[in-house]
């Protein structure tokens, strides 16, 4: 038996609905017999009547409603149909959810699921990775699971946390990534994982880019290069200690992210290592990001826009020559 990343997300929600009466799911097309644009809530409306609710196309009001319910003790999960559309709800997420605890001392335990990242042919408005934007603002926790196991345990943790969580699930991983079984527990949130051990170079990545990075490491291994790969798991909080410890072993840092380059997660990783571990570096740190244009539609353009394992290999080789 095998379970996909997407099924893990569905199973986590089923478990949450089963175990916790405070949980409800709120989003476009999540209810009825439809079960969501990606079927992440398939069958849940029938199994949990009245707790998996379709909403109007109103991202702002979806999150606002979740905030009000959360302050009154509920544990809402909001599904954005695509991460890209959460831009309509930015005000509620950043200015309302993100400020409530600091301002009033009342926690706001909402989980917002963002089907994120690029897939072939999806174009500028169905492909975005918004983790850097949400991480920039205070008051939010931002998760970016890269494995089936993390997709499952981190979503369960997201709902248990008393603060707003932006849960970035990667659409590219939905069907391709499989595991034999679901774990009963995972690493604590906020702790990065060494996904591959090496000694020549540290690649820091997360979400779908973890897999491109692992493929790149595999290619470089054929040349006798040992690449260590760190999976951040959550980008906020960012586990700087694990990253620094890895750089201490390898002396070289390459940060890889699928998001746009300006001020992103990769920039933050490099800034922290440069500020706190400059002496650990044998070469200037480098990064690989998407290009600074809207995400293109055509597969030829898209595969050049998005960091590929080949692009990561090329950058790693360059870094290793220094």
């Amino acid at each position, binding site marked *: 038996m095998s379970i996909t990343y997407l099924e893990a997300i569905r199973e986590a929600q089923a478990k949450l609905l089963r175990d916790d009466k405070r949980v409800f799911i709120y989003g476009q097309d999540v209810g009825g017999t439809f079960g969501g644009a990606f079927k992440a809530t398939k069958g849940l409306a029938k199994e949990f009547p009245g707790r998996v609710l379709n909403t109007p196309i109103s991202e702002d009001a979806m999150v606002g409603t*979740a905030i009000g319910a959360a302050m009154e003790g509920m544990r809402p999960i909001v599904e954005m149909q695509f991460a890209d559309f959460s831009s309509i709800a930015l005000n509620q997420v950043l200015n309302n959810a993100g400020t409530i605890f600091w301002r009033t001392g*009342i926690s706001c335990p909402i989980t917002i699921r963002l089907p994120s990242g690029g897939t072939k042919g999806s174009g500028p408005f169905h492909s975005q990775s918004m983790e850097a934007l949400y991480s920039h603002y205070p008051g939010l926790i931002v998760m970016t699971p890269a494995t089936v196991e993390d997709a499952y345990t981190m979503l369960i943790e997201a709902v248990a946390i008393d603060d707003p969580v932006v849960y970035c699930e990667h659409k590219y991983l939905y069907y391709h990534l499989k595991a034999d079984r679901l774990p009963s527990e995972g690493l604590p949130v906020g702790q990065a994982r060494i996904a591959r051990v090496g000694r020549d170079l540290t690649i820091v990545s997360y979400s779908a880019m973890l897999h491109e990075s692992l493929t790149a490491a595999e290619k470089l291994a054929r040349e006798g290069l040992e690449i260590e790969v760190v999976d951040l798991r959550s980008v906020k909080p960012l586990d700087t200690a694990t990253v620094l410890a890895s750089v201490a072993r390898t002396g070289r840092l390459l940060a890889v992210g699928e998001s746009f380059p300006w001020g992103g997660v990769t920039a933050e990783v490099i800034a922290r290592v440069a500020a706190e571990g400059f002496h650990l570096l044998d070469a200037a740190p480098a990064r690989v990001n998407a290009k600074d244009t809207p995400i293109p539609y055509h597969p030829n353009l898209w595969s050049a826009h998005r960091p590929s394992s080949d692009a990561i290999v090329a950058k790693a080789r360059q870094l290793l020559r220094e």
Partner: protein
Amino acid sequence: MIENFLGSTADVGYNRPMLQTARPKEKPGIAGPPHERYFDAFGWMLLARTFEEKLASLYRGGRITGGVYVGKGQEAVSVACGIFLRKGDVFAPLIRDQAGRSAFGEPLVDVARTYLGSRQGPMRGRDGNIHRGRPREGQLAMISHLGAMISVVVGSLMAKRWRGEKGFIGLTTIGEGGMQTGSTHEGLNIAAVEQVPLVVVATNNHFAYSTPNEREFACQALVDRALGYGFEGYEVDGTDLAACLDVIGSAVKRARAGRPPQLVVASILRLAGHGEHDDFSYVTEDIRKQPFARDCLQLAERFITENKLVDAETLRAWRDQAAQEVEQAFSTAQKEPVPEGTEEDWCAISTRVLCDQAE
């Protein structure tokens, strides 16, 4: 045809003639107040006005950091928003709602604390002026982005319904300026979709900061939108306390009785600047002569005196008491410690172990 709460057979969700029937008849020599809560309401209006006059004078004296926003001219509408709410209800007021906040139970000292940044206030110096609230007590803390609180109230009401609470309602306020945001549109629509017991009171004070109505919206009457959203809609003369109590009080009753969400649109003129920094020179003499430009507090007081509802001594005693409460609120708050940057807890989330350690 379903009979509505008021016993009329109209089920069109909007009923403007209501306005005429709700207006009090200002006949001389009537025996009692035109509404059972009239004197209570007048007391809160007086308290709010007295407090805000003091606040404005402290602002002019440089004693308040940040802005000061007052509800002068809006007290009758505001008090009617707060006075019918009870424990278990949710109130999401906006910037000109001192009278309503007080009527709903906000201690005056919390207002002074917030304006002075006291560590003992509900916002502890972390947020100021009108962005205050005590969510645990049903008073939500507004954000500045208009319309955002409507859906938040909807969610709170859904949670109460899930928990099996009975008889509660939510009330939130907005202005004609805030009615033009996308957030308001989404919030009103989702309120009707979720069929929550909500009252939205929209006060048209004729200016969004300095922008007049004709550059704000182009529909004939804002209340017409009620029908479009699936709300029941009413208009009221916001300068008339008795009318405000009648119309908003009836909307509250209808919401409690399970009618669809209620929209009340009140018409007034803001008798102060957007904030105390604003001289509101954009309000022309012509506008100041309009019926909606009358001062609701003066009108209520004139109504009380002309009809000899209370004697001059009682009125004076009410005023003295308001002044005393205001003095006490400020004198308490002024003695309290303010926050210090070096002692502040700079973690924006409640799960401390997950606080990011960025510099």
